[in-house]
């Protein structure tokens, strides 16, 4: 059982610790049918839910405070329904009502609608276009990941449009920090005390011999990041695959790492790694600037 943010998991099922390293293959991308195989027309929407969320969405506009009538104007939901919905949402702390203004405003429970889960998604959404360009220009797979307990979790990935090959990793994929190049990059970007704290807890999930090996890789990667800004490795995600990772630290956000992976068959490997690394560091630099500007 890992210890980071695991309290709630403790109740359900113990964490799977069997996965020691990620088995990743280059696979051919299957043509995506529809997004999840359900044609939109088949979904029958539940009207009270649609209306309830439409009321909440009305507060995404310019005005912080809205009266029932203003919500009616913005949503075209009948007034009686709106007053019932605002009352319900106020009872449940999603809205708050000001007696003096006689208007409503968003309240603390809206944080329950996914804010915490997605709080780092704005960095990810800034990253997406940059990542896609990078993937297309360099013919590689690019992903951004963060820490979830002792695992890395993939937030977003982009495939190169020029190659059909892809890494068998998708958004939401977990892999142990200690056994993935992007985990090493993440560790390299953390303050010393925090890194050693995490390492301390990871150790117990790996057999002694394997841990010595991983520990060595982590130290090497950290040295590489200190020296060049990125770490590169070959073979961790498949025999032929080069993986380059860069830590992504944005003020006030979770530490993350950006990783790219490709198969440099035609070029000199060392030169290839170096070029890719430099380009990835440059991309992360741009991303940090964008994210910093957004939140500065």
């Amino acid at each position: 059982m890992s210890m980071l943010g695991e309290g709630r998991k403790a109740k359900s099922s113990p964490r799977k610790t069997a996965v020691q390293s990620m088995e990743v293959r280059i696979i051919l991308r299957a043509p995506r049918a529809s997004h999840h195989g359900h044609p939109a027309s088949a979904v029958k929407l539940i009207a009270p839910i649609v209306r309830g969320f439409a009321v909440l969405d009305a507060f995404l506009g310019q005005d912080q405070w809205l009266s029932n009538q203003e919500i009616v104007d913005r949503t075209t939901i009948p007034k009686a329904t709106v007053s019932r919905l605002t009352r319900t949402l106020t009872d449940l702390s999603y809205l708050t009502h000001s007696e003096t203004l006689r208007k409503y405003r968003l309240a603390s429970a809206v944080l329950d609608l996914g804010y915490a889960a997605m709080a780092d998604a704005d960095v990810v959404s800034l990253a997406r276009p940059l990542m896609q360009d990078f993937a297309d220009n360099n013919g590689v797979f690019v992903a951004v990941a963060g820490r979830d307990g002792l695992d890395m979790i993939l937030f977003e990935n982009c495939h190169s449009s020029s190659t059909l090959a892809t890494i068998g990793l998708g958004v939401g994929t977990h892999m142990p920090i200690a056994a993935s190049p992007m985990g090493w990059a993440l560790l390299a970007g953390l303050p010393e005390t925090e890194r050693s704290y995490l390492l301390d807890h990871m150790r117990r999930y790996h057999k002694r011999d394997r841990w010595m090996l991983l520990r060595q890789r982590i130290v090497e990667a950290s040295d590489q990041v200190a020296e060049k800004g990125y770490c590169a490795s070959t073979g961790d995600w498949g025999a032929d695959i080069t993986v380059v990772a860069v830590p992504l630290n944005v003020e006030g956000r979770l530490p993350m790492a950006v990783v790219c992976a490709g198969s440099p068959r035609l070029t000199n490997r060392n030169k290839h790694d170096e070029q890719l690394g430099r380009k990835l560091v440059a991309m992360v630099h741009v991303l940090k600037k964008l994210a910093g500007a957004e939140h500065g």
Partner: protein
Amino acid sequence: MKPTARHRTGASGPQASEQFSVRDQGVAAGVSTSTQTLERALGVLKAFRGNPKPLTHAELVRRTGYSKASISRVAATLVALGYLDRAPDGVRFQIGVRGLRIGHRYLSNSLVTRLAKPIMQQLADRNNMSVGLAVANELDMIYIEYCNSSSIATLRLGVGRTVPMELSSIGWAYVWAQPPARRQHLLFDILKRIGSYGPAVVAKMEHAFEDLDKYGYCMAAGEYQRDTFAVSVPVLLGDPPVVMTLNCSAVSYVPDLGNIRQVLAPSLQSTAEQLIDAMATIDSALF
């Protein structure tokens, strides 16, 4: 609406259930059904507890107590609205991007977080700890502000995260600060939720209440997350006053009791007073 479903809605909190029964009597049946449907959708999102991990259909059924069919329909609607997403495997569900925008909007308008942040950050930096401010959300506490000391980069519990009231000192301090009747009500609902662990949990809470009676704060070590340690004080903020809880916590070490009593707790309490002063005249509707 099936009686079982109503029962469950009632279990979500004494406040909700009281208001609910009033509404039930006064309003036509069809109306209360649509209200319940919306509550159910909100409950499904809540079931993720602020975690980006995908959940299976069965897990959602287990966590919410709603029927399989009901979860399917509610989830499909939430996916269409963008509040939920299908996980990449096409089977499980995960939180969608929509909720981020609305949470962001609340926070950027919220006076309490703006006023509290600098005061809390001082405490975090001075003691090298994390400092959080939480409000109650049914039987959970939800963090509306969270400051880390500059030496910790990984936010383990950030803004918007929820913790069960009974498992954290931040929840205990909240329950303690309630008037007796409401406190009983909360304890009753907590017992109902946790079932067989009840007696042990209540014993812990009572111990915390003794501390709160005696010292004005309570502490916990390794309750919700192993290797963590926290001290919490209730604070009444704004006008009319709203009960919130302020805590400071550290990962990986537990200071000795003398240090807590003589250094940490007094400094948390003085931060609490600063918060109370800073917000004494602020209309709490602006929180």
